[in-house]
């Protein structure tokens, strides 16, 4: 079987989190939740370390990570973009905004740009339906979005 290649620091973090859940296999979802909170995402070696610490097959860990859309194996960008595809945003053209973001960033939903700057995701309703369609970058909300505005708002993050 292939070996696990992981940094000492990351292994220590995983071990501590697993231990805080009693190293119980049944806690794997809670553990993954916490571990993703720590690292921002769940790369292969982190999943392998979780499996080892909880003494469960790594196939099961990957099965869970690949099933729940909450879990991700992609590192988040410096500025995570979320496009609302809730009903209100959708009927007011959110998909066109999303397509424009995909085109300009050259990424698909769930991916991160190669420079690590932006990651693109979709979600359902941020509770600002009056401003539909809504895009969030980090914690900042952009309302009444149109494809034309995409270039400008991305430009705000030229650091």
């Amino acid at each position, binding site marked *: *079987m*292939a*070996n*696990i*290649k*992981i*940094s*000492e620091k990351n*292994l220590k973090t995983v071990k501590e989190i697993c231990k805080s859940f009693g190293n119980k296999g049944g806690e794997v979802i809670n553990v993954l939740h916490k571990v993703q909170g720590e690292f921002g995402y769940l790369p*292969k070696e982190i*999943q*392998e*370390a979780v499996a*080892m610490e909880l003494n*469960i*097959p*790594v*196939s*099961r*860990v*990957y*099965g869970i990570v*690949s*099933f729940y*859309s909450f879990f991700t194996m992609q590192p988040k960008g410096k500025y995570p973009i979320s496009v609302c595809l809730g009903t209100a945003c959708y009927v007011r053209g959110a998909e066109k905004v999303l397509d424009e973001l995909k085109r300009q960033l050259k990424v698909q939903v769930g991916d991160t740009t190669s420079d690590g700057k932006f990651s693109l995701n979709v979600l359902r309703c941020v509770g600002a339906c009056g401003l539909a369609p809504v895009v969030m970058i980090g914690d900042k909300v952009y309302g009444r979005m149109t494809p034309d505005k995409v270039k400008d708002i991305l430009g705000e993050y030229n650091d």
Partner: protein
Amino acid sequence: MVKLIIDNRPVEVAEGTTILKAARQAGIHIPTLCYFELAGMNFENKPGGCRVCVVEVEGRRNLAPACATDCMEGMVVHTNSARVLNARRTVVELILSDHPNDCLQCEKNGDCELQALAKRLGIKEIPFKGTQSTYKKDCTLSVERDMDKCVMCRRCETMCNKIQSVGALSAINRGFNAVVSPAFEEHLGDSSCVNCGQCVQVCPVGALTLVDNISDVAKALADPTKTVVVQTAPAVRVALGEEFGMEPGTIVTGKLAAALRRLGFNYVFDTDWSADLTIMEEGTELLGRVKKVLNGEKATLPLFTSCCPGWVSFFEKNFPDMLDYPSTAKSPQQMFGAVAKNFFAKKIGIDRKDMVVVSIMPCLAKKSECAREEFAVNGNRDVDFSLTTRELAHMIKQFNLDLNEMPEEDFDSPLGSSTGAAVIFGATGGVMEAALRTAYEIQTGKTLPRLDFTEVRGLDGVKTATVDFNGLGVNVAVCYGLANARAMMEEVRNGNPRGFHFVEVMACPGGCIGGAGQPYHHGNSDIIRKRMEATYREDAGKPIRKSHENPDIVAIYKEYYGEPCGHLSHEQLHTHYYDRSTKVEVK
């Protein structure tokens, strides 16, 4: 008891019985696909996912899956109403809409449960045109995976995790992209897979199949410069007949030898012969370890058997701290290969490179075992190719032969004679019983009062017994299924509280008779039971039933090996194990 009506017929069943089983009891056979059971062998897969078994329950809005719905008092069930038949057909049509229709070239052609279902429902066209799954094909030395054909029944996942505790396979992704896969969709060969192949045995379709070596063997047979030697495992002779329409449990030993000869093998030998040899080596090793402990010296107990390559791979991957527990004796397949290419090649005056050794095995793991580096000399394997029972059946048919019409012939000499002790290697508990027959007589110097150790027979997953060796109580355990083996290893690691001296482990349900290379049993555990009965029938009918009384075994020690566990035996008939566990490399 619960009373209900199924298709206008009153049925009475025990509480907790599913509609599926209640209907079967009433002679109504609801079709299934994902559902799989080995009755009495602790294996049941019922995710209720495929919906092929849906039935109409009066008073319920939705159709109910019969495999996962318990009978209730007064229930009125329809298994063949227009609504049910329509839904069932739609379900199968939808499954087929994402299934390659290359049945003619499929390994499972004729053995496929989806094919049988489509035939039974009379499906003539698939009205739905949708996306087709496209996954990378993958294979190990034993197992091929073509997940485009996967129907997500999850039988393999249940087998791999619950019964084998191997954990190589898991359902991944969701919705249309859901599939069964190793972690990170990497190669099965890089995972915790031990090549037991039970996923192949339970797969209803052609998603998981064996690695076919028929053409390799046919090529060797056609090569006039090669002397091709064949050995055939104990469990093959009680199952091969099924592929030719014979009743399960038919013994075809003589016909098998005749068929192999007609295929063109130069020497038709028997793995049973090397099973007797295994008993000599393993039995001697057991007695050696027990004697050491009795003399107050250090020795590792219990001794675990090492005949099963799935099990060997399993402990190498999962118990690297316990590699000194299993017997160092090679498996009968590899002992045979070593004897054939060392002793027998010399005897008939040929170079080992000009000899091809083929094994016929009930097993997929044997394909990986014979490829292990330590079982080759300068790249020349002791056993060149391993064919399964199913492949042999195909080969016999390809060579225009019918097993039914074969005469009864004997194996060739000198690697062809065997005892009843070797025959029972094929069933769970058999290696144990064979070893006890020999170890008892060697240790006590007395003749066994009875040869049948019934306490280690039968289809229970774990069996234990204490055998009286002239005042010395020998504690033995027998298990099949690697989850049972894991529990046993953990118990031993935690101090061996039950004081076991000797433990037999077989990976497959019921032992080799339920091996992954055997004819598909499609979940009918009666077939495994009948193969087991045949195994003990064959044993009872043998004139010699103790390995150490096999005259050809006695002769080879006299002529060649000297003594069991002697110097030459250690060189040729024993092996060592490797730590193949996952390790952490800290960067």
